[in-house]
């Protein structure tokens, strides 16, 4: 009986902080006004060029950030997994994730700013100071920098989990290194890549702190739109609408990148 009592706070937490907030944000996004459609916020969202353009830009930024971190991370994860010192190297890679995100963003303000280090070196070369901070480039660069460890980790885990006999089999059957990689290693580590994409893409869509500090007010993502609606323009109902749309996009990404249980090697062998 006493045991049950111990379960109560957790149950209350689920109701109060998981279920109810989701219901509330959804309710807030609806319109309860006579004469107006209950979904009028959504109609406004999908018929407004501003919102659609912002959603598109947000996707484009998230896509680029995910893409760049993937092409940098895959080789890194591969090299680390094949190294003798892999545990130590992976520890080195994940250590920076324990440093507060804000401080890393702040470091880049110093590096990119008008009187920062890069402009100082450019000055030595006789080049006039460039506007580096508050550009699309700086936002993508810093976001990629921050996301790389989160991309390396799942890929590394999936390469480590790879059964080495597959590689030997492929080599025995006469495949060269490139064929072994494209037909065996890469397909078998797809789950790690998918997890990596998932862990990077969702925050990239919704980050607002980094956008503000590094991208200035030029880069607007779904995350900054929500923050602005809630805390600046106080239009909670439209902010919630963007929030609900973000939740649905997130669910779609999770479903799209969820792990496939079937072993794909069997299929590939028939080629």
């Amino acid at each position: 009986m006493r045991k049950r009592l111990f379960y109560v706070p957790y149950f209350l937490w689920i109701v109060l902080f998981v279920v109810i907030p989701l219901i509330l944000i959804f309710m807030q996004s609806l319109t309860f006004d006579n004469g107006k459609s209950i979904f009028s916020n959504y109609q406004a969202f999908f018929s407004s060029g501003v919102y659609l353009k912002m959603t598109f830009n947000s996707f484009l930024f998230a896509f680029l950030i995910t893409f760049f971190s993937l092409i940098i991370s895959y080789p890194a994860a591969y090299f680390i997994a094949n190294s003798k010192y892999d545990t130590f190297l992976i520890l080195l890679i994940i250590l920076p994730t324990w440093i507060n995100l804000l401080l890393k963003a702040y470091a880049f303000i110093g590096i990119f700013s008008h009187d920062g280090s890069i402009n100082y070196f450019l000055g030595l070369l006789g080049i006039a100071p460039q506007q580096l901070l508050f550009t699309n480039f700086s936002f993508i660069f810093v976001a990629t920098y921050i996301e790389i460890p989160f991309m390396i980790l799942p890929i590394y885990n999936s390469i480590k989990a790879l059964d080495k006999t597959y590689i030997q089999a492929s080599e025995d059957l006469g495949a060269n290194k490139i064929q072994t990689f494209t037909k065996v290693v890469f397909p078998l580590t797809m789950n790690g890549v998918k997890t990596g994409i998932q862990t990077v893409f969702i925050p990239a869509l919704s980050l607002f702190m980094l956008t503000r500090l590094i991208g200035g007010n030029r880069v607007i993502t779904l995350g900054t739109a929500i923050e602005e609606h809630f805390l600046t323009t106080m239009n909670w109902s439209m902010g919630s609408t963007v929030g609900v749309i973000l939740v649905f996009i997130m669910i779609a990404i999770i479903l799209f990148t969820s792990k496939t249980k079937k072993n794909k090697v069997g299929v590939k062998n028939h080629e």
Partner: protein
Amino acid sequence: MNKLFSRIYLTILIILLYLPIFYLILFAFNKGNNMGVFQGFTLSHFQELFADKRLISIVINTFLIAILSSLFATIIGLGGALLIDSLKSKKAVNTYLSLNNILMVSPDVIIGSSFLILFTVLGFSLGFMSVLLSHIAFSIPIVVLMIIPRLKEMNRTMIDAAQDLGATNFQVFSKVTLPYLMPSILSGFFMAFTYSLDDFAVTFFVTGNGFETLSVEVYSRARQGVSLEINALSALIFIFSLIMIVIYYLLSVRSKKMIKNGKGRVV
């Protein structure tokens, strides 16, 4: 050849990963007042920092929130792990786990804005309590996830043995289950603690005007541009993070959880 390439690649990557952090710390000792060129060594920014009473009270607030929230989250999360463990049907377990993980996969803006609506609907004033409750709320799921695997590995005959020897339910819990779970409870507490210290976005939404944590303060100062006092603060936070990492590493040497999970994001 291939080995050489992989070595160069990894070396450059790791240097690039650490460069901004060390750059930040180096300039904490800069005589000048921006992060452009290093003009000589000084400790004046640290002196400024220690004389800044407002900032020190913010640091104290931040730690108070972190300790209280991780304490409550650990107790509630332990209850949750035991609850999920006691369920017989697989479907119920999966339902609870999905509900548990919602706050882990939700973007911070969603958590922050929905909590803001929640507190407003409940008529709760924004400040210390709303921040504390939010931090407890978003730390609970990670505690549950840290404890469940250990519960699964537990040898149930130990409980049977204790009961056969006449232990009451409470004695079984306090003398057998709790000591066995202790390493995972400590890891959970630790993760909750770092979650709380690191959080910016959720706090930013639910903090209102009067109350600030370190992250919110650094954000509002960084928006105004570079001030080397922040660098000095970063240097201290960096050293503190290193200490935390060592503690966590010692806690998890056996389970190697850190390698598997990295910092926090479990998707």
